[in-house]
């Protein structure tokens, strides 16, 4: 089995994996980072989104081997070491941007990238940018509110680009 070396949430880890191991399974089963969820098994729902070298990616769509030598940030790596929430996490919490919460980690990760890469985030941009993330309970209303607020907070206090 090939060995992959990936920096996950700032820690460099090396593990032997089967070639077919998906990144999401590597994160969940090998590293115990279960905040990244599997919702659909078919790259549709976005519950498994993580950041790879700062870009959001559905981790059920990427092999662990493809992440070799790269930096991965999962939902567990977003808050500061002292537990202070990332502004996007705080915004989701503050604005009730969740109900059953299964989609939340993927939503937050997609939102972080969206906010970083879109200078002046508009409601329309959020609608378009979230096409790959399904939520079945909130009706998206509070999610959009949270992302706009989170993006604004990120502008005000640019966070340390964790693991980048």
């Amino acid at each position, binding site marked *: 089995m090939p060995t992959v070396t990936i920096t996950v949430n700032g820690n460099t880890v090396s593990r032997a994996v089967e070639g077919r191991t998906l990144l999401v399974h590597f994160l*969940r089963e090998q590293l*115990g*980072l*279960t*905040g*990244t*969820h*599997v*919702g*659909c*098994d*078919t790259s*549709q*729902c976005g*519950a498994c989104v993580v950041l790879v070298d700062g870009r959001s990616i559905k981790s059920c769509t990427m092999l662990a081997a493809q992440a070799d030598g790269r930096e991965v940030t*999962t*939902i*567990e790596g*977003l*808050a500061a070491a002292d537990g202070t*929430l990332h502004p996007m*996490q*705080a915004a*989701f*919490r*503050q604005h*009730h941007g*969740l*109900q*059953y*919460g*299964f*989609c*939340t*980690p993927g939503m*937050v990760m997609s939102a972080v990238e969206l906010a970083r890469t879109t200078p002046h985030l508009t409601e329309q941009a*959020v*609608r*378009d940018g*979230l*096409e790959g*993330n*399904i*939520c*079945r*309970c*909130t*009706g*998206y*209303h*509070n*999610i*959009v509110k949270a992302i706009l607020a989170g993006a604004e907070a990120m502008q005000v206090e640019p966070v340390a680009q964790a693991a980048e």
Partner: protein
Amino acid sequence: MRDDIPTGIASEISGGAGVEQRHDSARKHVTGQARYIDDLPEPAGLLHVQLGLSARAHARILALDLDAVRSAPGVVAVFTAADIPGANDIGCMLRDDEPLFATDTVRYHGQPLFAVAAETRAQARFAVTRARIDYQDQEPVIDLTRARAAATRVWPPMTLARGDAAAAIAAAPRRLSGRLRIGGQEHFYLEGQIALAIPGEDDEVTVLSSTQHPSEVQHIVAHILNVADNAVTVEVRRMGGAFGGKETQANLFAAATALVAKATGRAAKLRPDRDDDMAITGKRHDFEVDYTVGFDDDGMIQGVSYLFAARCGFAADLSGPVTDRALFHCDNGYYYDAVTASSDPLMTNTVSNTAFRGFGGPQGMVAAERVIEEVAFALGLDPLTVRKRNFYGTTSRNVTPYHQVVEDNILPELVAELEHSADYAGRRAAIRAANAASPWLRRGIALTPVKFGIAFTATAYNQAGALIHIYKDGSIHLNHGGTEMGQGLYTKVAQIVAAEFQVDIERIRITATTTGKVPNTSATAASSGTDLNGKAAQQAAQTLKARLVAFAAASGGVSEDDVVFLPNRVRIGARETPFATLVSQAYLARVPLSATGFYRTPKIHWDRAVGHGRPFLYFVYGAAISEVTVDTLTGEYRVDRVDILHDCGRSLNPAIDRGQIEGGFVQGMGWLTTEELWWDSAGRLRTHAPSTYKIPACGDRPAVFNVRMIEGRPNREDTVFRSKAVGEPPLMLAISVLHALSDAIASVGDHRLCPRLDPPATPEAVLAAIESVRQRTGPPPEP
């Protein structure tokens, strides 16, 4: 976590009833720390279970050769019906019509035949594909046309009748008839079905199950294993969505893992692949509704008859109560002078359809609104005018088809308020004017109301239990029979307990629902979670409070009236004592600090055989105005604006309730617009993943979305803090989208013809309706 318990004295507690307390797990969700069953550390030696499924919709099994499955890599054991120690029945009605594993006959495509337990999930998934199954095909009954011809029922039909509908229709100045088809809906809970079973000593087993109904899972598992209920403990901390899809559908997965765990002595987990989940589990019922209505020239309905034929799938499941509830809502908010409504719960060779938010009520309401629309078109009236004319009265014209008197009707005022505040009339006129100048893009607007009955129609289910401990340090442990699926039930019940004790909500530990703490619970369903469990928890809290009051009065030498619970402290005569201090003193004085609470809903009763009673404690009301734009060349559309006014009584948590309204609306919109289930003629579900089954995405939500709760309308009934249930009713507000689309389509024919737009109104269906209206009214305009 002792630090979390505030010791300071504040003028107001945090998280009391009525405040916008955040969801109890919010922080855990945003940090990825909230654990679902698949996220838990796996027990040593865990086996992974997968199911072998039928590849036919209806066939006799001539041979089931599992040798290659047994010899596949990593396989530890294979299970068929022959390996079940108890009864091979997982049906909630225990009618022996829903086997865990099919034996001589398979009745739907995707029906489980066997289970494989292997060392890894991948090995189990590979192994199930090795089975060699010889089928002898039988003629399958897939769609409702065939089902109506075959006329095999999974449950006895019901009829509601008041007055002589046939005579009233015949005597009415006008009458019309039609047929409406209403599609089903996949729940698409993001967390799929899952169970994890851990074998215990003797015949004991613990099952972690993603279920809305732990007590039923407990009973089914016991039934399968042939052990007493007390050998089985079922626990659920939270579900990643359910919507009714885990009311009975969790039984199968829990039973299979328990079987494997007890047979092998190893823990066992089953998480089906999403495609399998969608193929195996039941969905919202699709219906064909035949209606005939007699009405006068003002649009007053004088008599109406309905026949609700439902595709129920191969087994009864909840189809009886679901089709009953469709009848209970065939009036929506309208008074029928004379009415007959009958159900026809039909057997088909498809998944056994089940509970889904609204539980048949939405289909009943869609039919009621179609009838209103037909009457309006027949008379050239605004459908809203016809709606308002037919609303229930308050002192007269207030008896439902099931002979319950509507005592709390606020629909006329609620609709009037929304109509005015969202300028329905002005916008409608503007839309008509704009359409006249727009050959291809057509807009539409509609206001539809909701009246939804609250209580389980099976009277026995309207009971709940709770358990509260107060520990010596003053921290509180809360447990009840309701399950958390994101709706905020745990938070709301904790708010109620916080309010009773007048302590900060942080002092209360919300604990996982388990059959070991509160027995014989009802499903968390029928929107009743807070009504039932909130009352039970309140009662437990009141019991404990009474003991603390008696103790404080005796030890302080004051009367009980002089003991008052203030925020985080208790005033005893002239003295104030922190809550925790009083608790520790009570402990030393040997006051019992643990209590159960129990609640049964008052007033309700129902006699199905005669169609008479009071099935509901009260009604929830609401109304929505939707505005849409339709591209009449392609059938594509968007929802431009939605205005909602909804009734939550005195809301326990406006933020959570608003979330339920928004989410319910969008989910209902999905059902009525883009979500289309498609079975081919062989009975294979071809929309078995989100790639082919389109639930609303972020971009589908209305561009303008104004949601308000009606103020100053506490529940007239004695519910917990006079709140109202909120889980299901908002879903039906989305019927306004269907009617707004219909309005836009009707503009193509100058509003002369009712488009008879059947849900789901996919762009394809909208285009077909446009073509049909065009054909019936003449040629299209020149480009």
